[in-house]
Every structure is written in C-alpha cells, then in structure tokens.
C-alpha cells in the first residue's frame, strides 16, 4: 500500500473516530450511531477496505439529522477494476460524505431530503435526493415516492480536466401493504435516465480481422450518450413464528442498451435468544448482455459505432451466500448497543469474455451500532 493510501486510510479512520466522538457528545439526545469496516477481496486481485460511520440525532420531536462518511481504499491489479487484470497495479482512495434530514409532517406523512458527495482521484460526484411516504389512517397501506439527481465528472488520474460529465436523474415509487399481523408485501418501480459521458477513459476495445490472433486496432470504448434504466421489485416479509423472520424478493431490471435481468433474494433471521440474532442471505442474479457488447469485436473493415469493454455489460450469472451474526452489548449512555459480524461469498460467471470469465469474491464486515 502506497504512502498516499496509508494517509487516506488514516484520514478515514480518523473521521470514524471523530464521528464516534460526536456520537458520545450527542449521547444526551436520542439517535443512532454506527461505525464499522468491510473488507472485499476477489480473484481479480481487487482489494477494497471500506470504513464507514454515521450519526443520526433528533433535532426536535419530528425531525432527525443524519451525517455519514465512508471510504474505499482500493488496491487492484488494474487501473480499471471492471475490465480485466493487467500488470499495471494501482492503489487509490475514494471518500464519500452524506447529509440527510427527515421530518414528520403529520403522524401519517414523512418527508426527507439528502445530499452527498463522492471524491476520488479520477471521479467526483454530487448527489441530491428527496423522498416522501404516506401511510393511510388504517396503517395498512404506505405509498412512497423518492427521487434524485447526480452530477459526475469522470476522468483519469493526473488529467487536467475530466474526460466527460454525466448527469443522472431517477424516480422510485413504492407501495407497501400489511397483509396480516405477521406479513408485509411491497412493490417498487424505479426509473433512471443518465446523459453524458458513460464510457470509462481507461478502457480500450481491440478490433480484430476475422480469425486474427492480434488486434488490428485498439480504439477507446464507445458507448451511447444516454441510458434509460428501469427496475421493478416485489418483496414479501413474514414472521411465521416467534423469533423467526423470513424475506424474499424478485427484481426485474432492464435498460435501453438491451440489458435485461432477474434477481431473486432470500433471507432468514432467527433470534434464539433476545440478545442474539443470526441471519442468512442467498442471492441469484441472471442478466442478458447489452445489444452491442461482444467479447471479441471481429468487425473489420467496419469500425463499430458502439464498442464496450465493460464486463458488467456481458451476460452474467451471480450467486452469493452470506451469514450475519449480531449480538447485543451492555447498554451505554442509556442506549442499546450491538456488534455485528458478517461474511459473504460471491461467485460471478461472465459469459462471452476473453479474460477472467469467472470471479470469486469474499466480503467480511464488522460493525458497532448504538441506538436510543
């Protein structure tokens, strides 16, 4: 790890400590404080340390304020973590901050707004969001609407100016219904439009003559300047017996680049004793490739209008399984505290890719929460 990245990690750790200190100062008010770190490792030789901290305080009886910080300290075998490993290793850090306010206008109507920023040597982003949720008088139905927009500058490390800018805006509408005293079903629909530079300046696509071993041309990745994405999710949460909670969801996603996929998630939480919570999570994601994605472009003498090197636009199957253990700790500052540990394995098969068609990843996380 380079000195600059050790510095970034030190800044991240210091920020977590400062937020925890603020949490202790805020201990006189009701709220929630959380801090922890995740470690991500995969077979592409990507390593990410992700510390985070957040603090929520009650400004008054109806209003809460939340501040958060997170970071990614990345060590990778390639400058482009989404394409393929190369001999050019790199390390860098991304820092993210967020502020959020939530207000209860009435017992049945809640509103909120947030702003966040993400800063790294090659990508900087600013995001603003809003949300509102309305619950009917019988407390059976809840309708929600949220949305937001972001503005991102994408470039390469060391460039004087960004290679391009991206603007995104999206809306999500949701409906949740209480089916019984132990079951909730919810449906969400989302859409997002992105406009601008959607390529990666690090990615180059090789163009071959048919059957050739060596590429005739390497051109910068070329993608459409707009992308409209949509998704729908149905989820059921049930508590079939005391101390057992189950949830399952199905998500359909698609976009105007031709990507289309299905995601199924299943989860169970059991409380053998009140202080201990054990959880298991299973996930499947299957995806069709974008219409213009090819693992190998044998198009000469024609140069393709669109050419992608991003493996995430390939046909994909991802399977993941995780475990989570949460243990309540003795109360401090008159609040409930808990520690959790989490581990997850993620297997991804990327079809029609020449390099690294499989990825095996492991994630471990450890965190502390305090709530009053």
């Amino acid at each position, binding site marked *: 790890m380079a000195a600059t990245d050790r510095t970034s990690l030190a800044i991240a750790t210091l920020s977590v400590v400062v937020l925890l200190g603020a949490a202790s100062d805020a201990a006189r008010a009701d709220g929630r404080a959380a801090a922890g770190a995740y470690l991500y490792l995969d077979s592409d030789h990507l390593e990410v340390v992700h510390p*985070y901290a957040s603090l929520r305080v009650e400004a008054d009886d109806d209003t809460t304020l939340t501040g958060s910080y997170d970071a990614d300290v990345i060590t990778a075998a390639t400058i482009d973590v989404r394409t393929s490993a190369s001999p050019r290793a790199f390390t860098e850090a991304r820092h993210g901050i967020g502020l959020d306010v939530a207000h209860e206008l009435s017992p049945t109507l809640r509103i909120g707004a947030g702003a966040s920023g993400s800063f790294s040597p090659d990508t900087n982003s600013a995001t603003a969001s809003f949300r509102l949720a309305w619950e009917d008088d019988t*407390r*059976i139905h809840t309708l929600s609407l949220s949305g937001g*927009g972001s503005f991102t500058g994408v470039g390469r490390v060391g460039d004087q100016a960004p290679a391009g800018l991206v603007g995104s805006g999206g809306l999500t509408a949701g409906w949740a219904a209480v089916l019984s005293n132990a079951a909730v079903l919810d449906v969400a629909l989302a859409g997002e439009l992105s406009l601008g530079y959607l390529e990666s300046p690090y990615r180059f696509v090789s163009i071959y003559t048919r059957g050739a071993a060596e590429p005739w041309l390497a051109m910068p990745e070329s993608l459409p300047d707009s992308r409209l994405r949509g*998704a729908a999710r149905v989820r059921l949460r049930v*508590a079939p017996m005391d101390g057992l909670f189950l949830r399952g969801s199905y998500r359909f996603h698609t976009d105007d680049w031709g990507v289309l996929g299905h995601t199924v998630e299943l989860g169970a*939480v059991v409380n053998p004793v009140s202080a201990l919570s054990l959880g298991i999570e299973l996930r499947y994601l299957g*995806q069709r490739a974008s219409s213009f994605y090819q693992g190998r472009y044998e198009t000469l003498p024609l140069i393709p209008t669109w050419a992608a090197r991003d493996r995430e636009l390939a046909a994909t199957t991802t399977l993941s399984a995780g475990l989570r253990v949460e243990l309540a700790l003795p109360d401090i500052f008159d609040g409930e505290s808990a520690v*959790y540990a989490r581990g997850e394995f993620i297997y991804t098969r990327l079809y029609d890719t020449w390099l690294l068609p499989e990825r095996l990843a492991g994630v471990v996380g450890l965190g502390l929460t305090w709530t009053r």
Partner: protein
Amino acid sequence: MTLTRLLLVLLVGTASGCVPVAAWDRGSLAHPAMADSAQPDSTAFDAHLAGAREAALDPAGAGGGGCGCN
C-alpha cells in the same frame, strides 16, 4: 405482457387481502428484522457494492448514482 398481468393480479389480490392490525398486535411487524431495511449499514454496503459491480438499477437505491466506480 404476462409479467404485467401477473403483477396486476398480485396487486389486486394483495389489496383485497389486507387487514387492519391493532396496535397491540403489531409486535412482529415492529421487529427490526421486519423493517424495510433490516440492517441499514449492511444494506448500504450491499447497494454500494452492487452499484460498482452490476449493471442493474435497484429500486432501493434509485435516484442516487455517482458510484465513483469507473
């Protein structure tokens, strides 16, 4: 179209099957494991990871963007 019809049937069936639940009978519904985001810190990390490594839009994370994943 089949998916749309299935969703419509599900929505209509669900809406007609909903029942009011008294405040004293909401113990299971109020449990953190039944919350929209049962473990908010884990959920935030999962959304961050998916945003950087997957092409899908997630209704739970829509309206955001700027994952800084390039």
